């Protein structure tokens, strides 16, 4: 009995040993759990929050960009990427419908055939490929198509947790006017750190506040929204209303495009600014692309600096005037357009310079004499450092050293040399060359601002592209026109400057551009670029024209810069016509211009403002038709004739109507006539007429003067 008890006790002791070990182990587990909670608790909880709950941002709808008239320049359109989780839907439904779904999918996405789709869906269902819970169906589907897709078999089983159909929404930026002002409207791509144009500058306003939705992580990597946790609704971005006039932009774009194409130029820019407000109404930037066409690839108007050349002479002469050094009628020797400054020779480009020795300063400006301007500046400011400094200060008082602050990131700062500054490589030729627009750099917009200020009688407005911010059609912030300075120069200087610019168009380098419809003022620029042959590039030219219209009561200022034109290098020939076309189209389309146009045609009666090239020449027709047309246009013709048939001959400044005899008994000369007149004349005289071609008559089958005997006559038009 004792032995049994001993054995029993021994067993009990062993049981308790084992039990104690297990209790210890249990305590250890509890201790470890406490350690996890108390000492590492914070770490694990943070890890948990990062892992299990995720705040998925909900993209806010990006604001629109409007033109001044409310046309949409850029807008956000929702698009959907369609995905499918084939494992969700029930077996029977899947089996029954997979064929018809495959057929539907083949109809919307031809990447796969019907059989291909079926195979794809079935393999996905069996989990036989990567990402099978997220099968790609189609990308960038619009709302209407999404609604259609939702009606497909299987997809019509309900929400994504019932049908497996996943539509991931994203917004695509659409520009309804495509390339118009494309670069100025700009683009934002946070992923690639692209922030250009107005999209970039106003990104904070446009993008709105993205919302947040707390999502749970499901086993298997899916996310589901947490229902009872608050969700922050996204705030729609604000719309921005630009100053862009979409019609004017269209005109400007195409005028520039045509000119660049004609000239096979590298790139160009054209900006139209409203004189009174500084609002940029149009800005076109075109660069030759690989395919030989032109595209809005870089904002040359704002982000590109160049040596403006002759267009800068306005600043030089304004400095001279402002400092009282000259009067416009003072005479100056221009040495037949050739002058030696130190070791460098300055040459004029205009023909007139070669035949003139002494001209008025006014004339020197009009014919854009480099020698004249360089000599003047060198004479008055080239004495010493102090005088040079005065010139620089004067340029600075015209704000030629500061960026305009237009709402585009990446506006280039102008470069202007400091007097006698070694770092700027100041030399004896610096001042004369600065006088004619070299050794300084600025953007087209900055130069335009100077001309705009002259047009605006010295009141400098800040160039701007955006007039207000809107939210749901309500104005939330206004950007009124900003005055930079009340007056950049004296009244007299401004008046003289305007007179000079008008003179350039009336008598100077832009005389061939003038219109008899209205007057405009401006300055041509023909600058050599890369004359130091930096980086081994060829010397090329930059042709420009900058001015404003109408001259009396300026509405718009405009600059056109064409880089590396190949057909002609002169600003008057390359850039001037673009300016002219923009101005013409403004007069055609803008009622605001009619008044000033009327005034002008009266005031211009004494002048002949016709462009010879544009006049009809050697047209033959009915006299009364011609007379009514010519008088309607307010043109003059001479001498008045009484003959029924006339030929019109263009003279340099007017039209001559010449007598055209049409005999009755002989075959008349109908070459040069329109078809209607010719048939009238010939059939009245008993001839049988057959016609070939279209246009004006270029040839007739019977020689004029042949007796009429009812012959057949064939006339050729071309």
């Amino acid at each position: 009995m004792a032995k049994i008890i001993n054995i029993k006790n021994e067993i009990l002791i062993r049981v308790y040993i084992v039990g104690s070990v297990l209790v210890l182990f249990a305590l250890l587990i509890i201790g470890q759990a406490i350690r996890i909670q108390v000492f590492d608790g914070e770490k694990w909880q943070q890890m948990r929050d990062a892992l299990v709950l995720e705040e998925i941002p909900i993209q806010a709808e990006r604001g629109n960009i409007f033109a001044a008239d409310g046309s949409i320049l850029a807008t956000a359109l929702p698009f959907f990427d369609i995905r499918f989780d084939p494992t969700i839907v029930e077996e029977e439904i899947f089996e029954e419908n997979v064929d018809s779904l495959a057929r539907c999918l083949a109809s919307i996405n031809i990447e796969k055939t019907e059989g291909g789709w079926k195979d794809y869906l079935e393999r996905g269902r069996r989990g036989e490929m990567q990402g099978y819970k997220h099968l790609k169906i189609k990308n960038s589907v619009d709302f209407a198509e999404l609604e259609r897709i939702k009606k497909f078999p299987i997809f019509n089983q309900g929400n994504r947790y019932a049908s497996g159909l996943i539509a991931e929404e994203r917004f695509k930026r659409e520009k309804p006017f495509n390339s118009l002002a494309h670069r100025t409207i700009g683009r934002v791509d946070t992923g690639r750190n692209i922030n250009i144009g107005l999209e970039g500058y106003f990104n904070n306003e446009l993008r709105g506040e993205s919302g947040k939705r707390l999502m749970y992580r499901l086993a298997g990597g899916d996310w589901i929204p947490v229902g009872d946790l608050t969700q922050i609704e996204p705030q729609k971005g604000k719309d921005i209303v630009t100053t862009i006039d979409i019609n004017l932009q269209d005109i400007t774009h195409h005028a520039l495009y045509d000119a660049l194409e004609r000239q096979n130029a590298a790139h160009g820019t054209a900006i139209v600014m409203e004189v009174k407000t500084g609002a940029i109404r149009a800005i076109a930037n075109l660069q030759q692309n690989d395919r030989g066409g032109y595209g809005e690839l870089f904002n040359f108007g704002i982000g590109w600096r160049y040596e403006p050349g002759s267009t800068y002479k306005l600043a030089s002469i304004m400095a001279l005037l402002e400092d009282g050094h000259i009067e416009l009628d003072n005479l100056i020797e221009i040495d037949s357009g050739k002058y030696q400054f130190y070791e460098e020779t300055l040459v004029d480009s205009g023909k007139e310079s070669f035949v003139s020795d002494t001209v008025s300063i006014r004339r020197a400006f009009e014919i854009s004499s480099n020698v004249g301007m360089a000599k003047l500046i060198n004479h008055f400011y080239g004495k010493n450092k102090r005088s040079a400094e005065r010139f620089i200060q004067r340029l600075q008082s015209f704000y030629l050293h500061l960026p305009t602050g237009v709402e585009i990131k990446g506006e280039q700062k102008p470069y202007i040399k400091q007097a006698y500054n070694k770092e700027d490589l100041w030399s004896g030729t610096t001042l004369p060359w600065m006088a004619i627009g070299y050794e300084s750099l600025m953007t087209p917009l900055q130069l335009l601002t100077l001309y705009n200020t002259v047009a605006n009688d010295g009141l400098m407005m800040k160039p701007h592209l955006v007039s207000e911010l809107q939210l749901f059609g309500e104005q939330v912030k206004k950007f009124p026109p900003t005055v930079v300075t009340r007056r950049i120069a004296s009244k007299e200087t401004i008046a003289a400057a305007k007179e000079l610019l008008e003179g350039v168009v009336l008598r100077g380098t832009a005389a061939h551009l003038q219109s008899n419809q209205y007057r405009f003022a401006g300055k041509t620029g023909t600058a050599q670029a890369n004359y130091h042959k930096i980086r081994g590039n060829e010397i090329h030219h930059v042709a420009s024209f900058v001015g404003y219209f109408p001259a009396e009561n300026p509405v718009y200022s405009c600059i056109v810069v064409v880089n590396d034109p190949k057909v002609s290098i002169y600003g008057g020939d390359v850039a001037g016509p673009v300016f002219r076309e923009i101005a013409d189209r403004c007069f055609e389309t803008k009622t605001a211009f009619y008044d000033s146009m009327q005034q002008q045609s009266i005031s211009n009666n004494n002048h002949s403002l016709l462009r010879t090239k544009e006049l009809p020449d050697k047209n033959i027709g009915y006299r009364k038709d011609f007379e009514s047309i010519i008088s309607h246009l307010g043109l003059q013709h001479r001498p008045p004739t009484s003959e029924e048939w006339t030929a019109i001959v263009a003279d340099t400044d007017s039209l001559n109507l010449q007598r055209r005899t049409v005999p009755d008994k002989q075959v008349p000369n109908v070459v040069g006539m329109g078809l209607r007149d010719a048939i009238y004349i010939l059939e009245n005289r008993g001839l049988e007429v057959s016609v070939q071609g279209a246009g004006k008559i270029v040839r007739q089958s019977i020689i004029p003067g042949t007796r009429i005997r009812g012959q057949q006559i064939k006339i050729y038009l071309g």
Partner: protein
Amino acid sequence: MSLGSRIQAELRGDPVIWMIVALLATFSVVIVYSSTSTLAFQYHRDNIGFFLTKHLVLLGFGLFMTYVCYLMHPMRYSKMAATLFLLAIPLLMYTLALEGQNQGRRWIEIPYVGITFQTSDFARLALIIYLAKALSITEYIRDFNSAFMPIIVPVIIICGLIAPADLSTSALLFFTCMLMMFIGRVEMKYIALLIMCGIVVIATLIILADFEVFDGIIRRDTWIERFRDYNNNEGGYQVQQSMMAIASGGFIGLGPGNSLLRNSLPNPYNDFIFSTICEEYGLFGGMIIISLFLLLLFRVARLVTNSSKGFSAMLALGLTLSMVIQALTNMAVAVNLLPVTGLNLPLVSYGGTSLVFTCISFGIILSVSKNIEKLNLEGSSLMNKK
């Protein structure tokens, strides 16, 4: 007759153990419902209760089996011991020869029923019954002949057959057997011999894993990976999830159904159910679960105190040790005290057929307790008569 006394009359045996079964089962239902809800959402969204229903059916069947086993006399198990043991060996071999499901070759399908079950659960039960019998036959095992062939060899065979596909179950069983031998007063040198044999078997398996024939049979790579994860402090992905869950629960927990990590925690309803418990019911809930298992251990130890060293006491103790060690291992994994094992929490986890075997074990323990009570009652009345 009141309901309480009615239950007492029907369910004799240790009422505390009955209570432990009832509490664990209840806890199990609540936790499984919570932790399978996302699974249900994902795979059977029309029927959120799918997994719960499945669990309830199994649990119901399991508790029925508990009752059946409870009704049997412990000596019936003693008689079955050899048969069960001999049945276990070919079953395990057959399982290993089958193409594995999921991970490892652990399951076989019961013909015509379509239910798969883990043969190691059966083998474990069989070995413990067998060992209890072997230990009770010889009073004090001191010689090689009575130790080696009847005890060490069977343990090594069963554990060796389980080990290739399921090392942790094998180790658990091995350790349980070791403790049973220790309590059954087998001399220490034979226990040392058993350990030696165990090491030899493991070493052999590791070497054999290099041969192509055993490719996919011996899960050596998994073992290595788990030990590596364990060695690097953070314990690998699964354990990190588990620790996040424990940390987020605090002392009182997030409340029933509020687990956040069940969505990212792998197997929140079985292997890592302790983490889910700690997250929803806090450290407090976790401690209750631990206490229930420790209480079970003490109640069964009490049976041993009350009974002489016999087959039934050894059987109850062996089964209890196996369950308690498994429970503690499961929890130790969750708190990163042990490498990931894949052992579930007995009776609590959503565990399919192993739940039924746990219930059977409980039934046997209760049967033993009922019997010992009866013996004591008879013994004391005998004493009284004297």
